[in-house]
């Protein structure tokens, strides 16, 4: 066992978007010893009275994925591309290293569960009864490497489902009901959404956003534009919009007018001249504590941020149409862009200089935290494996009693580490065993995902699918409404990539026509006919928090480094099932109106399938792994406060999508970025105290 002596002010576990955002914002600030305040680097004069914040980041993925100088990062990224081209199944994880020392959940490992026997095929140990259907990747930059990049904000009512719709959920292991309001509301989060949209680089048209909310769009967005102009909607979108504009859908309860809106997204397009100059996310000192603001004093125009290895590559989306799993030119945002800004700072030559105060240790799997008598996190335990091939590892411990520890390892890994961190305290003369950050017994609970029901068919005329980013338009009509007291809200993205997701098109179409004996011109004609008409609708259904949908650990199931694997219990309730029934109603009506020939098929052999009111529905995961360390109002109802700080420990933050109290109908990355950025205010405050002592 080796000990690292050189103390760090902050330890961040994970280099995904949450960890990278925090690293970037912290490295942008320094401590002014004279004033006793944190100030932005841009306001710091060269002087000896400045103290830098030293940071150590751990990443379970390979070393190569974190070498972000131009030459290395291009080599590694090209290797991802090559792997992607070679893989037969182009699933989200396919381009990235599949590591036995740091395994990742993979959609290829999902299979139906036959209780009581768990599915142990992949990294997750799934007890079900329904398999959890989403994946993630443990690699430098995290799962943003294969996110789609859609960035809607949450709606105001998403933050107050109990207040607004009276929804309450079970408390863990009791019949008591608990409210599920967030400790923060939309208005509070709004400025942080703007910061997240700046950092990610969101393209979109504010004036075209339309949601079924009681607030006006003026109230919702304010006087605001996205940094970049809208990514053009696809030809298919236009055709569908032409056919549906001004019409309604009749659900069991309500008639709902259809709103087709262009999706804001984290991929580069033309900078919006109205956005003007670039910005700085800057901490302003308050009486006590800090407030982050989007400072507008910069002189440079806002510019699209291209590839990590070449700023002139990926300045615009080129429509490569492989956003998931990999954007070849990095026009789509990934967290490596933010991480590079933490790792390199502008020097006097306006070039980049390696920031010596940030150290990243790759191939390092954090698996346990220790706690001292003051309930502070005193140690972080790490297993660092030596090579990609071997499972040999070095056991490392870092002393963190004077550091702030930030878990940013995703909603599977964060609870896994916490649940593996047991400690004993003496209370009233009795030895009591505790789990880190788990006073509320909420760690690992309320695992959520969007259930993506797909419906697909052939449009009556060619709409030329398979072009452009995955989705450029969504139907926002069902994102909020009174029906939420009865069943889930959902968002319906239109999918530009034909039937590739549900039916593995176009490969499956080729096989089908070949087996019918077609060849030559007839085969070409059949393919042209079908592939140019394929449409696919998503119905991404909100899942409510449920304490029994949870991640636990079990000594019986460990990985190659001897670290526990996430054990998952997961199921749906009638609230979600009913929404799927209603969504299918909506789909049927829209298909009929557009004269789409329905090819949707749900089979008993599908991985995620159920029968509701005698009708079968199947769905997929959305990759939105959310909710296992919820934020809340009190130490009793939640794992963290609204700043993602653990209620139980003075120096522990737990950040990421796991903090989300509820899921809403938005893709979670933008929202998690917003409240992660906000958490930096609290971290800076803690650091100020730390530096003054």
């Amino acid at each position, binding site marked *: 066992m080796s000990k690292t002596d050189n103390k760090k002010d902050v330890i961040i576990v994970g280099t995904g978007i949450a960890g990278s955002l925090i690293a970037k914002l912290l490295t942008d600030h320094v401590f002014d010893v004279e004033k006793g305040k944190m100030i932005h680097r841009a306001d710091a004069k060269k002087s000896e009275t400045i103290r830098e914040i030293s940071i150590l980041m751990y990443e379970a993925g390979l070393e190569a994925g974190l070498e972000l100088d131009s*030459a290395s990062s291009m080599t590694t990224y090209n290797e991802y591309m090559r792997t992607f081209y070679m893989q037969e199944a182009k699933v989200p994880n396919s381009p990235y290293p599949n590591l036995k020392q740091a395994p990742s959940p993979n959609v290829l490992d999902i299979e139906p569960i036959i209780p009581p026997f768990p599915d142990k095929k992949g990294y997750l140990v799934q007890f079900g009864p329904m398999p959890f259907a989403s994946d993630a990747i443990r690699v430098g930059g995290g799962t943003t490497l294969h996110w789609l990049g859609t960035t809607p904000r949450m709606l105001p009512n998403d933050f107050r489902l109990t207040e607004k719709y009276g929804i309450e959920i079970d408390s863990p292991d009791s019949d008591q009901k608990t409210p599920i309001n967030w400790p923060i509301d939309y208005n509070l989060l709004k400025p942080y959404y703007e910061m997240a949209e700046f950092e990610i680089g969101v393209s979109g048209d504010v004036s075209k956003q339309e949601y079924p909310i009681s607030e006006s769009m003026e109230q919702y967005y304010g006087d605001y534009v996205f940094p970049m102009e809208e990514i053009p909607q696809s030809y298919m979108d236009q055709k569908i919009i032409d056919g549906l504009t001004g019409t309604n859908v009749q659900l069991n309860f309500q008639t709902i007018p259809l709103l087709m809106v262009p999706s804001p997204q984290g991929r580069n397009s033309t900078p919006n001249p109205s956005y003007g100059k670039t910005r700085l996310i800057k901490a302003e000192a308050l009486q006590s504590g800090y407030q982050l603001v989007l400072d507008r004093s910069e002189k440079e125009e806002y510019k699209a941020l291209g590839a990590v290895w070449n700023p002139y590559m990926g300045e615009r989306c080129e429509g490569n149409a492989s956003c998931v799993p990999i954007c070849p030119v990095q026009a789509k945002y990934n967290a490596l862009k933010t991480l590079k800004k933490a790792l390199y700072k502008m020097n006097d030559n306006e*070039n980049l200089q*390696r920031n010596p105060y940030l150290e990243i240790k790759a191939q390092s799997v954090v698996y346990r935290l220790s706690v001292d008598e003051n309930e502070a996190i005193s140690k972080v335990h790490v297993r660092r494996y030596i090579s990609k091939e071997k499972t040999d590892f070095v056991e490392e411990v870092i002393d963190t009693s004077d550091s702030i520890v930030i878990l940013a390892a995703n909603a599977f890994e964060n609870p896994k580490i916490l649940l593996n961190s047991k400690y004993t305290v003496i209370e009233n003369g009795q030895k009591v065993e505790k789990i880190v950050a788990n006073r509320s017994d909420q760690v690992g609970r309320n695992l959520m995902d969007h259930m993506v029901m797909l419906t697909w068919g052939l449009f009556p005329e060619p709409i030329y699918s398979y072009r452009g980013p995955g989705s450029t338009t969504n139907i926002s009509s069902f994102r909020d409404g009174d029906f939420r007291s009865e069943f889930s809200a959902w968002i319906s993205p239109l999918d530009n990539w034909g039937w590739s997701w549900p039916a593995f098109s176009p490969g499956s179409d080729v096989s089908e026509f070949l087996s019918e004996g077609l060849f030559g011109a007839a085969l070409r004609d059949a393919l042209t006919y079908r592939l140019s008409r394929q449409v696919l609708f998503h119905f991404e259904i909100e899942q409510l928090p449920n304490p029994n949908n949870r991640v636990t650990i079990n000594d019986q199931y460990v990985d190659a480094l001897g670290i526990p694997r996430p054990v998952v219990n997961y199921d749906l309730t009638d609230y979600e099932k009913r929404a799927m029934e209603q969504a299918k109603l909506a789909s049927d009506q829209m298909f009929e109106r557009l004269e789409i020939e329905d090819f949707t098929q749900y089979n008993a052999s599908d991985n995620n399938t159920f029968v509701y009111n005698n009708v079968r529905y199947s769905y997929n995961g959305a990759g939105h792994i959310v909710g296992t360390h919820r934020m809340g109002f009190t130490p009793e109802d939640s794992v963290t406060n609204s700043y993602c700080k653990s209620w139980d420990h003075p120096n522990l933050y737990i950040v990421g999508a796991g903090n989300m109290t509820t899921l809403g109908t938005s893709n979670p990355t933008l929202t998690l970025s917003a409240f992660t950025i906000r958490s930096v205010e609290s971290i800076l405050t803690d650091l100020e105290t730390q530096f003054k002592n």
Partner: protein
Amino acid sequence: MRQRLINKIEPQETLLKGARALASNTIVSDAISMQSLLTDSSISKADWTEGLKYHSKTLTNLLLNDQIEGFNHYLSTQFGSKISESESSKAKKRLSDVDYRPILQDLLQTAILIEHSTIPPYLTALYSIKDGTNASASQIIRSVVVEEMLHMIMVCNVMNAVSIQPSVNRPQNYPTYPMKLPLNVDFYVGLETFSTNSIATFIAIESPSSPLVKAPTSDHETVSTPLFTKSATAPENNLWTLENMKGFIMENVHTIGEYYDVLFFYIVVFQVIAYYTEHGTLPQNFEELNTGGIFTGDPAKQIRPEQYYGSGGKLHPVESLAGVIAVFQEIKGQGEGVDDSIFDVDPSQFEEGAELAHYFRFKEVFHEHYYLGGDYRPFTDENGMMPVTTPPVGKELPVDWSAAYPMKANPKLSDYTNNKELYAQGLEFNKTYRRLLDAIQSAVEGNQKELEKSIMYMYALKEQAVGLMNQPLNAQSNAGPTFEYTNL
């Protein structure tokens, strides 16, 4: 990324001292003053040439290095002396006869041709690399070729700024391979597959200046010809003709960087003349020179950054001399850049995020190593200088020279006449290339939207080029794109 001018200039003080010396007439100099160069009708061709060498270097160095104050000082020393009434009216008459249009049209079109002539060779080498191999080398060649395209568009912006219609798509705008660059050079540029030979040629294209053009230093004092007393016997004539100005280039200019230096000087000269004929006096500072004069172009014809992206560097619209400076800085900074046989080993050249000049980028491929992270102390002299020829010794850059199509060098469509399908394929490629140039032409005529189409054509070009390179032509070599003019 910020543009960088690698050009190492003389320290400002030396220049100023030199300029002051010229003005106060206490020490003799080797060059006549800028004022004489313009207004004195009696100077000889030889003096004119020497003056041109000196002032093009001095003035260009000042302005392209943003030394506006130094430039103002230089102007005041150059234009300080009084011109007699009779001299003045004679000079005015003579200078107002100088028509900058045909001269700049010729020289700027040549600049476009220089940029254009590099694009097909770079693209050919890029396309010849087999898919999935040589990722780093491909990336480097790509990064250079997109910058050459940017340069071409920016030269068009300069032309539009001075009300000259740029042309990119006519037969005479097409480079014919193999060819020499229209400078004083002794190597040929051609369409060749990716190989050490083709990369060596690219290094030559982008290579730094020969020692022939050197910034003036302390050797002022060794020359004893007094100022303003140059060969009084010269016949009275106008030396500012296309023939003379071009002749100067063909004799004295060996690199693309030098070409732009001289071209820039000519533009400034014409702007000075325009000011002089309009105001009757010579401009005293940069502000007076910056706008008006020859900058009569329609701003609506400028291609602007929002219309052009993803292609190396910033696109500068041009509405004044300041715009020309920005354009030339970008072009020079990205290209060979270096202006002396040695350059200042400013470590920032090799920092992460810095933009390496094309010359060095190609050397990285050739020597299969990056500059970044290398130790150059063994190559460095006591003044911290190293030869530009120093090979990169940083991280390894793996190159598989064999992973390229064995394309016939400088293929012509006529080579394909025996193979109908191949001929049709070759023709189709040339049509796509023509459409690409047509789109650019239309864009620089004011239909900027047309530029969007070029993206589509660039994708098609690659596919069609690779299609050609896949076809065996004979036992040794394959076909390739010919980049020849064709009717649509």
